[in-house]
């Protein structure tokens, strides 16, 4: 395979071309910088579609693998190893889709230091794509940590009032988790002599004895990122302070890195420990679902509400992951995409309201549908999608997860799914309350009478998300076709451990 045009290499590193070009612009050339960034991210999206075209949906294993030695030293073999399968392909596509959308959303929102913003944004895309494609533990760690730096700056420079606090908290929380993961990676490397994912699967016996600790070390890093209750406290701060585009990427992609990490590493590498911890992880997930929903309901600030709703929604993803049935895991993967789409769209609309009124307090709005009907209609669709109305994407994901978890042998009780179902109802409550407070009823605040409806650019940022919301809601089969073979393979790996345990 030709090294220069390998699709995975290209999809990961193409944004760097944009970074290089932007470096040559002057700080004042904001428009040129924005267009360059947008064009770069659109081309990257095109490349990701090209990658999709080369992907064989029916196969379970890794595809389009690229593996070159990176570092060789006595007893140490670190590879530059990329590959894609059903677990990661949708994540890469989601990243490539959300980045241009987020960039487009900053057109009028970010006026200050545009050059730096776009550079960090494109660097962030490199890091995120790398996380989803890396199959060498050290390479994965490098990408994983690397995503911290641009996001830290996006929050810290372009964020709200308490941005520095939020940025540092974000950095330290994530770092705390990943340092233990680094230690676990070193231990695995020491015991097997390799860091490559596929080799580790074969040599699993070598570190099987230590897998409880390894599971916990990896799990902590991922649980902080997801975030799972009680490690979620960095998330509301980061979300509220981050600029809109940052929130979109944070909710849409960065949180998925944690959930993806569970699927990619914890489940296949430590199956016995996974089975052992599955009920506990599920309990934490359910606490997260209910707690996130309850706290969301109590919020007055729309962005905070959406941020806490992420804690609740990601709880479903974790529940599905640790229910360990093919159905529930597939649902989790799809729900990761769904959450990216609907929460991304929610953050975008909240950001648009904020740009117009410079407040996110729900009490400052009310009845604005009459003034901004297009925004109101789109918001309604997005809200319904987020709360899981049948016919829209959220329903497909959550329903599959709940159905899969209901009969889960690993959890051993239908109560998990039963309690989680409450979360769906609660989501309807807090989301509809928000919608009602902001869009319905009479216009209470005079300033809202002159609100401008969405312009063409804003509609363009939302339309791709809405198309996918309907597509997945009405005809999810093509997506499941991509996911299922790899998920079935993954579940079969874990289920042997499950059989041994029961």
């Amino acid at each position: 395979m030709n090294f220069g045009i390998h699709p995975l290499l290209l999809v990961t590193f193409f944004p760097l071309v944009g970074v290089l070009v932007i470096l040559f612009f002057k700080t004042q050339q904001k428009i040129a910088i924005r267009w360059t960034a947008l064009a770069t991210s659109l081309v990257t999206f095109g490349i990701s579609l090209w990658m999709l075209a080369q992907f064989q949906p029916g196969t379970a294993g890794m595809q389009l693998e690229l593996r070159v030695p990176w570092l060789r030293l006595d007893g140490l073999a670190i590879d530059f190893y990329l590959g894609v399968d059903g677990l990661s392909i949708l994540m890469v596509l989601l990243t490539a889709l959300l980045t241009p959308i987020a960039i487009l959303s900053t057109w009028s929102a970010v006026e200050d230091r545009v050059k730096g913003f776009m550079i960090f944004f494109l660097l962030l895309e490199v890091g995120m794509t790398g996380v989803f494609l890396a199959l060498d533990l050290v390479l994965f760690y490098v990408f994983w940590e690397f995503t911290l730096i641009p996001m830290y700056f996006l929050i810290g420079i372009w964020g709200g009032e308490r941005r520095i606090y939020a940025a540092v908290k974000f950095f330290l929380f994530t770092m705390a988790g990943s340092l233990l993961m680094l230690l676990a990676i070193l231990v695995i490397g020491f015991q097997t002599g390799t860091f490559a994912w596929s080799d580790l699967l074969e040599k699993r016996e070598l570190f099987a004895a230590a897998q409880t600790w390894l599971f916990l070390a990896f799990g902590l890093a991922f649980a902080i990122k997801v975030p799972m209750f009680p490690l979620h406290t960095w998330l509301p701060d980061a979300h509220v302070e981050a600029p809109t585009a940052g929130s979109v990427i944070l909710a849409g992609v960065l949180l998925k890195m944690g959930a993806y990490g569970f699927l990619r590493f914890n489940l296949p590498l430590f199956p016995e420990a996974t089975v052992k911890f599955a009920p506990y992880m599920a309990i934490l997930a359910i606490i997260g679902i209910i707690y996130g929903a309850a706290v969301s309901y109590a919020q007055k600030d729309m962005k905070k509400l959406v941020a806490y709703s992420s804690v609740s929604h990601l709880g479903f993803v974790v529940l599905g992951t640790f229910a360990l049935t093919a159905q529930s895991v597939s649902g989790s993967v799809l729900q990761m995409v769904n959450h990216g789409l609907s929460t991304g769209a929610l953050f975008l609309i909240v950001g648009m309201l904020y740009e117009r009124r410079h407040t996110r307090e729900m009490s400052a709005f009310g009845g604005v549908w009459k003034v901004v009907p297009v925004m109101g209609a789109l918001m309604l669709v997005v809200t319904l999608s987020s709360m899981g109305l049948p016919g829209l994407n959220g329903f497909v994901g959550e329903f599959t997860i709940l159905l899969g978890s209901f009969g889960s042998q690993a959890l051993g009780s239908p109560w998990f799914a039963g309690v989680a179902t409450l979360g769906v109802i609660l989501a309807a409550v807090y989301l509809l309350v928000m919608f009602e407070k902001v869009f319905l009823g009479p216009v209470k605040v005079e300033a809202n009478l002159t609100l401008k409806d969405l312009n063409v650019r804003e509609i363009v940022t939302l339309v791709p998300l809405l198309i996918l919301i309907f597509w997945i809601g009405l005809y999810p089969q093509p997506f499941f076709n991509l996911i299922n073979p790899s998920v079935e393979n993954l579940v079969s790996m874990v289920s042997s451990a499950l059989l041994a345990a029961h």
Partner: protein
Amino acid sequence: MTQADFYSILPILTILLWALVLLVADLWIPKERKSMTALLAAVGLAVGVGLSLSQVGQTALTFKGMLMLDNFAVFLNIIFLVSGILAIALSYDYLKRMGIERGEYYVLLMFSIAGMMLLSQAYNLIVVFLAIEFLSIPLYILAGFARPRLESEEAALKYFLLGTFSSGFLLYGIALIFGATRSTGLEGIMASLSGGETNMVLFVAGAALMLVGFGFKVAVAPFHEWAPDVYQGSPTPASAFMAVSVKAAGFAVLLRIFLTAFPTLAQQLMPVAWGVAALTMLVGNVLAINQTNLKRLLAYSSIAHAGYLMMAFVSASNPAQTGQAVSAMLYYLVAYGLTTFGAWAVVVSLEQAEGKGLELEDYAGVGQKYPWLGAAMLVFMLSLSGIPLTIGFWGKFFLFRTTVEAGFTSLALVGLFTSLVSVFYYLRVVVYMFMRPGEPRVRRDGWLSLVAVGAAVAVVLLSVLPSRLLDIAAQAVLRLQ
């Protein structure tokens, strides 16, 4: 003196003679053209690098077993020489600007480097002692070079008093070991140990005293107290030089003596070294949190890094891991040295007369007004905290790897948690530079920018291709046993 003897010290001799000639020649160099002296000193050091490179791959025990030439020594000599060149690049404009430009500065720097090179080749405890004095005395003077500034004089006095105090420990330790083994040469000591005719009580006491002496030199806790004051008071380029090369020299001799001559002792002293390493990492990183003066912050950071280096020393006590631990330490030294010099270069470019421009507030707005300088400092801070895509990450990676493999997972855990602490204060610098508005005053100087940006580029590039340097570090180790 045989030809082999002569050849083994050729780089040291060259540097020494060059410095002596320069000391005299400087008298005829007019006051406004002291850049000549700087340039000549740098050329001398560059010649030294060339000569050292020609010694790569040779192993020779010379001067009747007093000196050892091996790749380990050559590797370190090159570190010393290069950091000397970098220190000159930082000093040239700084001295002029602060009004303390005198030719002796460069000569003293060269003397100190010659001492360090002698130390890295020393194979006899007497030579070790002489070399340590030889490298330290010029540094005492350099620390006070900014006289009559009070802080500088204070730094010099503190450094001198504590330095001589630690030399006392060292000398007493050497005397006890001589008493125990009837030899000061490492070969003689080894022979005595394997012959079983050593008085072990005296021997252990001597070794422990030597460890204390070296502990002072490399500033590990609890012998670290002098470092922040000295680094703060000394002329900044001199602090940078001390932070890198003295540390390298100290660890070099620590490894050489304890792993070559006292291998059995290494295991007995291991718990002590373990405690020192853990304490140093804790103390350095925790005390750095509250620092608002950049020079003090970097001083505490250098203490913390001495703790990480100590971790490699602990791992080296496991015989199966010795080679790997030493190469990890050498790699870490290079990573640390490169990054530290870069960071100090940024500090030098912001420093104003009378010790102004060193507070964190003075860094506000640097990232916005001087994006390249800010980006360089960002790279250094990330590298010092060990975040990927910097050479500092690989330094920590190899260090923690060897620590885990040598069976000291709990020490690695301490290291990991303290590096989490370190992230906090390194990020604080970044916060000030990029997230606070301000009007920073930056000195534009070609050499400074070259060091800062060059080091930043090297830190990133070497992280993408880390293996070549590690190969070299690995080869530097083979002749140690």
